[in-house]
């Protein structure tokens, strides 16, 4: 490859300019300065280039060289990614640590995946086969619970020769040669893909299946589709990160890509320490065996933060193409937007709203559009990428640009509420302002998988909460005492839903994850309670009588006292509820019947 060299003539933080660059490519990776900092070309004009640098630029000098690499900013995809923690441009942090110690040094070049490890590879093709892009030609059991499917890279096809037999190979072993009639292509177990280009697929499919998260307020009230996108806006301390961690732990995706984009170092450490210990509820394997972390924390270079979400989503698409369901968490997209703003400012571009560049909205759209459910290229299997982006609005004010634009491109909006968080009502998702536009798509799935009346119950509960909100306005002015008993009951029943159902403590061993069956049974019995109590009140039973019994307390504590593998206990509670109501009814009317 020819080596082209430019020369630095301006240095301004993470943005530098060089001339003599007319043969450089847009978005090409370059090595800057004598120490070889990694950068990417972000604009080209005549023979001058603007470069964003992924490392600290202290010490660079005017006149130092800028070397071309001939490659676009890309990720390396192949066995060995699972369980890793990368920086924003896919440098493995463990390797960096072994190489250069506990603090990040500059100009270090490392491979994203281990080229020395030999994988037990099962080869699925033989000499003479014709292969097409996306076709699965080998498998590797990458972890005890995850099978990596080796695919023909997009754009490659032809007849295979010199195919190796199944055996132990490193990722760079040529396992076959592909002849497309002209050129020969050496097929290895890894491929590169430029991060800013979405990977191709055969067809986009309708999203009709929820991503089950084990979080009641999400699964029951505001579900997200596999292949959908969601937005979690919230001021500091409202619970965005904890919620994202919950998704990473419990959601029923095959692969998790967690992007710590400009947030805290300790939050990444927490995942790194905790996930190997936690078991996937579906197969009992350590959660780390399906997780990839991208950690570009707030104190790491901002340009790499800008790149991190593309790195993450490209990795996710690669697993999607194997036919897996992948969930991507990005915490926080606001920090990504700020990186965009900072770089734009250094370029002296005209700002739009609040200093953000005018292309903020289109960049957000491009990112969230990479979510989707597809039939994959070459192998027809079904795969999806779901994206859940946290948004950190300044001052917790949702009218700012990142929140408003993100809202346009996502169909789930989980609004975190400061006052709920202050009262330690977690998850602090506001049930009145949050929404999911996916309900219509997943209705049938819930009917089939859980129960026919699932959404009927959900809607009843939402109506109850809405009615409660109306009553709360009155209570604020005149107190609860003046309400008639039936309205008092509404307030109490809503409070039961809020405390007993919506609140879910992530740190509770029993309640951190609730199976759909548990969610359904809990909601059902709570609404049965409401219905029966309403009937009692219409018979003249005083509300104090209803509240006096221990049944309400039992219902409130059900989430902690009934575990996922013992949901039958709720049936017993149902019996208790029935006899309690029966007794009251008897007392008041003197004649029992079946109510």
């Amino acid at each position, binding site marked *: 490859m020819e080596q082209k060299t430019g020369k630095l*003539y*301006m*240095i*301004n933080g993470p943005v530098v300019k060089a001339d003599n660059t007319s043969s450089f490519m847009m978005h090409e990776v370059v090595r800057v300065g004598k120490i070889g900092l990694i950068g990417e070309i972000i604009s080209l004009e005549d023979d001058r280039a603007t470069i964003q640098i992924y490392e600290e*630029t*202290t*010490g*660079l*000098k*005017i006149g130092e060289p800028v070397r071309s690499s001939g490659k676009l900013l890309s990720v390396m995809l192949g066995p060995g990614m699972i369980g890793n*923690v990368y920086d924003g441009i896919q440098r493995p*942090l*463990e390797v*960096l*640590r072994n190489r250069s*110690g*506990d*603090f*990040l*040094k500059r100009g270090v070049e490392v491979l994203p995946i281990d080229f020395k490890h030999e994988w037990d590879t099962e080869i699925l093709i033989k000499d003479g086969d014709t292969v097409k892009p996306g076709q699965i030609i080998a498998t590797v059991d990458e972890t005890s619970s995850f099978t990596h499917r080796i695919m023909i890279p997009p754009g490659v096809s032809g007849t295979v020769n010199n195919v190796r037999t199944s055996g132990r190979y490193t990722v760079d072993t040529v396992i076959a040669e592909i002849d497309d009639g002209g050129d020969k292509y050496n097929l290895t177990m890894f491929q590169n893909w430029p991060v800013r280009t979405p990977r191709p697929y055969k067809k986009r499919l309708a999203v009709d299946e929820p991503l089950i998260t084990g979080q009641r307020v999400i699964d029951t009230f505001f579900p997200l589709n596999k292949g959908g996108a969601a937005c979690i806006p919230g*001021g*500091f*301390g409202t619970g965005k990160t904890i919620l994202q961690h919950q998704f990473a732990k419990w959601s029923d995706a095959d692969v998790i890509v967690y992007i710590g984009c*400009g947030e*805290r*170092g*300790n939050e990444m450490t927490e995942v*790194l*320490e905790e996930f190997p210990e936690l078991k996937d509820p579906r197969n009992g394997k350590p959660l780390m065996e399906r997780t990839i972390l991208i*950690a570009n*924390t*707030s*104190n*790491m270079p*901002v340009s790499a933060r800008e790149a991190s979400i593309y790195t993450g989503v490209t990795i996710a698409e690669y697993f999607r193409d194997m036919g897996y369901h992948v969930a991507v968490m990005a915490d926080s997209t606001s*920090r990504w937007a*700020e*990186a965009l*703003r*900072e770089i734009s*400012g250094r370029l002296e571009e005209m700002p739009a709203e*609040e*200093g953000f560049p005018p292309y903020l909205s289109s960049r957000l759209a491009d990112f969230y559009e990479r979510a989707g459910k597809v039939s994959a290229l070459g192998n027809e299997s079904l795969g999806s990428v779901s994206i859940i982006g946290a948004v950190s609005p*300044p001052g*917790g004010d949702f009218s700012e640009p990142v929140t408003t634009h993100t809202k346009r491109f996502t169909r789930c909006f989980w609004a975190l509420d400061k*006052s709920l968080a*202050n*009262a*330690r*009502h977690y998850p602090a998702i506001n049930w009145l302002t949050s929404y999911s536009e996916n309900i219509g798509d997943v209705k049938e799935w819930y009917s089939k998988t859980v129960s026919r009346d699932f959404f009927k119950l959900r809607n009843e509960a939402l109506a109850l909460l809405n009615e409660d909100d109306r009553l709360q306005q009155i*209570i*604020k*002015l*005149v*107190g*609860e*005492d003046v309400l008639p008993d039936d309205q008092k009951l509404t307030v109490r029943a809503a409070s039961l839903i809020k405390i007993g159902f919506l609140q879910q403590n992530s*740190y509770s061993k029993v309640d951190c994850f609730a199976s759909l069956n548990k969610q359904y049974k809990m909601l059902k019995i709570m609404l049965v309670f409401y219905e029966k109590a309403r009937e009692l009140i219409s018979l003249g039973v005083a509300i104090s009588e209803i509240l006096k019994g221990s049944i309400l*307390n039992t219902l409130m*504590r059900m989430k902690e006292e009934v575990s996922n593998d013992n949901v039958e206990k709720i049936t017993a509670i149902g019996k208790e509820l029935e006899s309690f109501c029966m007794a009251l009814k008897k007392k008041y009317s003197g004649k029992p019947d079946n109510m």
Partner: protein
Amino acid sequence: MPVKEYIGLSKIDGPLIFIKKVKNISYNEVVEITYKGSSRFGQVVMLSNDTAVIQVFQGTEGLSIDKTSIRFLGRPLEIKLSEDILGRTFNGIGMPIDEGSRIIRGEYRDINGEPINPASRMYPRNYIETGVSAIDLLMTVVRGQKLPIFSGNGLPHNRLAVQITRQARIKGEERGRFAIVFAAMGIKHDSARYILSSFEESGALKNVVTFLNLADDPTIERIATPRVALTAAEYLAFEKGMHVLVIMTDMTNYCEALRELSTARGEVPSRKGYPGYLYSDLASMYERAGMIKGKKGSITQLPILSMPNDDITHPIPDLTGYITEGQIVLDRDLYRKGVYPPINILLSLSRLMKDSIGEGYTRLDHPHVYSQLFAAYSRVHEVRALASIIGEEELIDLDKMYMKFGKAFEEEFITQGEDENRAMEETLDIAWKVLGYLPKEELTRISRDEIERFYNKRED
């Protein structure tokens, strides 16, 4: 490396100076600026062709275009470190200003430090008992945490910081190799004196390293002060194995200096004129707290900042809260009511406490009591709002109980003396006493067993 010297500037603009026709200058390098025999320091903040833009830490007042000489020192801003810094006082860019000598032996360190590799971090799990009930129970401080105090002018943040510093201890462990790094940015002489004299009284002064940039010291120097201090802290913690508590006050003054500099550089401002990179800039300091695998020491940060107009949504507290691992918020209304420490419980938070409390750490009931107190106290606020409309007598019985609970919570639990050092057990017991005003059916966040064990109805 040969030192390059130039005479004459092309432009002076606010805190910035411009020099043309320079060669071989590196980005961020330090320069010494001499004019009429006295010198000051600056740093290269932009390079374009043959022009260097330099920010002058001591301001540009009194410099002239033709006679100012500039020496490029060929290195970033550094501080010389050894254990001899303990007990010493430095100015805002790390030069000794007490009677002591220069630091003679020692190693130079770039004040910007390097980011800790996230894979090298160790998750902090050792809680620090501060002896302050509100903090220990409701926003437990953990060694290696960054936990700021959000305050306002005239609120007793300094007293609280001093009390925490004096009383802080790790259970079952010697105070050990402990150091305090104190960084003052633009605070008044009397506040600095108050803090330093309290260290002196407690006999800790020989373990304190002080960096002073006071209200009448050069503004731009403040940009360097917290970085110099944190570089010293990193040295003591990660090379000398000490547990370091860093007190930085007042971060608001730091941010204002940064705004001034950004405006002078003609950058596009974000909210309230602060630069768009304020978040990243603050993070580059706050993220220097923590612990590292295989290393003995730790850095715990207790930054203090005043919220302009007591507004927690102001960019400075807002962006700080997005980076730090919680916050302790002081409240003017409570202070007026005579509550010390006037901590606004509902707005305060410690994000790291969850793994450091409960059975085996504090006491098994701690997590649930914590959650219950928040729930109950936030209910108190609703009830008080209602009572102010309909009158307290009109409240239903349950709400009256909440009123009683709220009062006791503020007067018995939050309130304590400046020298009162409560043990964790005592704090938890007071919490139960206060909860005794509520019927036990209300304690839905506490398990039945714990209620059985600790709850006593209170009749007074």
